[in-house]
């Protein structure tokens, strides 16, 4: 159990302007789950890319079974038995599960055609081992995210990997799915597979991890046994400072005027007879399970989808036929759940991304005043502490937390008075998370009405003035923040108590 199979010594990797990895060392034992913990930009991803042959380190050594290795390409690392499951899956959505598992390595008949029977059989064997009930003939696009992840896992196992790297595997999973995943990880451990596990979720690390190595600013801060480390210690190692725990919002700053009034909104089977309101200066959270209709509600309000019936008023004005443009004119802003898909033009500079939502209001004449645009970009870079030397940098070069801040800057530059935040801190490290929480609080204090969708209950409880709980397309309960517990919210969200 204790023999070291992978050792990384003094790895350094520099990118123009940033020292991404600075003398990082750590080791991995057979059959252990070794957690890599660190804020975004701490160097975790870079380290993983070095281990899988995507990047070449400037200096330092990698030993596998005591033998020094250099991985020229990802394929070399794969051959050596190191597989990685990225946050964004590398699956071909329109192929079947079995085809994906053996993509590029399909078993062939003697005539050179693909041996479909064997392909199915082998895939089924791996899926059985993972104890998951997925039809190997199903197309990947028809599966939920959790199952897609398991297909990725099956793919990694099909190449007999000794070392599995999992990047934020639980970020998009529900609690039950997480438990299944953890069971799978445990049975992998029993088979002697070692796992490098990257995550921000502190609670789960001690459940699944054996040892935890903390990275900060490209350096390894230390390695601890998961069994006997205090949570506060880990946090301190990660951020180098104490995080305050108490409720961020001490006073309810809600005002008389309404930012949002929704009456009897329905949309097919997704949304049924929904009536909610948000006052200016108020933080209202939509709680509920994934798929309960929270995002769908926000999209229907914003005019991304059409509602069947009901009325929506934004900042006091009726929006009979909603469109993003019309909502923006009424000072609404929408921070989507997926910033890469819906929030940012990744290959354009920070400067232009920030003005995208405000083109009509910031430049009413249609002529872009470059100096003004640059001034606005710099103003928000400083205000939101977006870490970048230059607002001309393309957004793609920023870390997740900083990208999220660019999206926020986009909506602040249009002087939004009603903002929807859909999972604003998903996949973001604790430090940036706290910053975003403070910003939401500050915005509310300044009189902005906020509707926040979040699956992170502690986050809901620290920020919300009021909570609507959704289940199966309905609002099942409205709760004030006082005296309410996570358990209570979960009970309503899952139908554990009668709404």
């Amino acid at each position, binding site marked *: 159990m204790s023999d070291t199979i992978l050792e990384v010594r003094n790895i350094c990797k520099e990118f*123009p302007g940033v020292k991404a990895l600075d003398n990082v060392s750590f080791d991995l034992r057979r059959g252990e789950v070794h957690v890599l913990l660190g804020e975004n930009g701490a160097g975790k991803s870079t380290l993983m890319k070095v281990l899988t042959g995507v990047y070449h380190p400037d200096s330092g050594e990698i030993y596998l079974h005591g033998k020094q290795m250099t991985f020229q390409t990802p394929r070399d690392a794969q051959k050596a038995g190191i597989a990685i499951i990225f946050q964004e899956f590398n699956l071909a959505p329109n192929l079947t599960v079995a085809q994906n598992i053996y993509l590029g390595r399909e078993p062939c008949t003697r005539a050179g055609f693909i041996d479909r029977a064997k392909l199915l059989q082998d895939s089924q064997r791996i899926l059985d081992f993972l104890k998951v009930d997925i039809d190997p003939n199903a197309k990947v696009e028809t599966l939920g995210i959790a199952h897609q992840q398991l297909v990725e896992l099956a793919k990694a196992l099909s190449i007999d990997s000794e070392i599995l790297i999992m990047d934020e595997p639980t970020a998009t999973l529900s609690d039950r799915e997480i438990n299944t995943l953890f069971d799978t990880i445990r049975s992998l451990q029993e088979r002697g597979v070692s796992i490098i596990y990257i995550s921000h979720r502190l609670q789960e690390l001690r459940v699944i991890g054996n040892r935890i190595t903390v990275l900060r600013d490209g350096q390894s801060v230390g390695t601890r046994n998961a069994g006997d480390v205090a949570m506060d210690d880990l946090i301190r190692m990660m951020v180098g400072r104490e995080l305050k725990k108490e409720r961020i919002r001490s006073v309810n700053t809600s005002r008389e005027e309404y930012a949002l009034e929704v009456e009897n909104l329905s949309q097919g089977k997704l949304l049924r007879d929904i009536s909610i309101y948000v006052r200016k200066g108020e933080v209202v959270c939509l709680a509920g399970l994934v798929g309960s209709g929270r995002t769908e509600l926000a999209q229907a309000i*914003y005019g*991304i989808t059409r509602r069947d019936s009901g009325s929506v008023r934004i900042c006091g004005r009726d929006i009979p036929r909603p*469109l*993003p*443009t019309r*909502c*923006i004119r009424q000072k609404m802003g*929408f921070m*989507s759940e997926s910033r890469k*898909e*819906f*929030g*940012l*033009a*990744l*290959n*354009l500079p920070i400067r*232009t991304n920030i*003005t*995208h*939502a405000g*083109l*009509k209001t910031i*430049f009413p004449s*249609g*002529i*872009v005043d*470059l100096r003004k645009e640059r001034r606005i970009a710099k103003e928000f870079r400083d205000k939101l502490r977006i870490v970048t030397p*230059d607002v*001309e940098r393309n957004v793609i070069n920023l870390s997740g937390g900083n990208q999220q801040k660019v999206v926020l800057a*986009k909506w602040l530059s249009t002087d939004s008075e009603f903002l929807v935040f859909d999972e604003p801190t998903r996949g973001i490290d604790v430090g940036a998370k706290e910053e975003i929480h403070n910003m939401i609080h500050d915005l509310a204090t300044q009189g902005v009405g906020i509707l926040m969708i979040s699956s992170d209950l502690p986050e809901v409880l620290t920020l919300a003035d009021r909570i609507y709980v959704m289940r199966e397309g309905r609002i099942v309960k409205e709760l004030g923040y006082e005296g309410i517990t996570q358990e209570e919210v979960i009970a309503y969200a899952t139908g554990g108590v009668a709404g």
Partner: protein
Amino acid sequence: MQWIKKHLATLSRLSILLVMFLLLVIVSPSFGTMTNILNVLRVSSLTLMVATGIALCMLVGGIDLSVGATIALTSILFGSRFQLGHGIGDMVFGIAGILVVSALIGACNGFCVAWLRIPPFLATYGIQQIARGLAYVLTNGLVYSNFTSTFQFIGGGRILGIHTPIIFAALLLLIVGLMLNKTTLGRRIYAVGSNREAARYSGINVNATLMMAYILSGIIAGFAGIVYTSRLNCAEPTIGSEFAQEAIAAAAIGGISFKGGHGNVFGVVVGALILTLITNGMTLLSIDSNWQVGATGVIIILAVLIDRNTAKKKH
């Protein structure tokens, strides 16, 4: 330093052009003469104009194959319908007519792409066939020529010794460059091309932006058609058939991404000049014209490879 890094791709393209230029100056004595350089610019100016329009469609993630047919149809209409008399008024009316018709063709492209959601390649190919077909029907095989000398000046004259097409191309580039960098329309074009969904969530009217890109490409093609017809002093339904291909190649060599949202007009200039230098250079080196066609293909592929490898190094 930062500036160099940001513009590395453009600079590398520019250096390919400069190397080609210097090689030709050394190898061929007649290349460096003012006459030849002006000639190169004149030849490339039409490709350049059309490529600028296509680049707009490529920036929003599309393509415009209909430019050649637009040139043919508008030039036929000019010869057969718009310019019935020979006065200045007729000419002005004719030119205005061309611009309106070409804008309409662009609008048809935009409508098919934005509202009917037909893939741009197919939509503009279809419109191209329709426009070309109309040109044949309207002429019934006739060729129109003998335009007024005023009209011939537009494409065939010189101002201060510089050919008019060069001047028009330069003006067009200036306008389109300013539009892309200094107007909200330009911002919208890049935003839609870079991430259509994010643009929609930002309240940008995606369909209207697509529409504008195709209309502008149509108008620019119509404008190029005026210059071309004037220079040829002739209008016939078959002209301009190779324009789309050449212009797309110029834009692509110049770094306009097929995926949208990436590239600038300066790149298009470099791309168009590289393309013209290849042909011009081979002619000056008296390479057999039968071999020139294939050689052009080889050089284009080499240029793209060199360009991509230098651009990659910045990572």
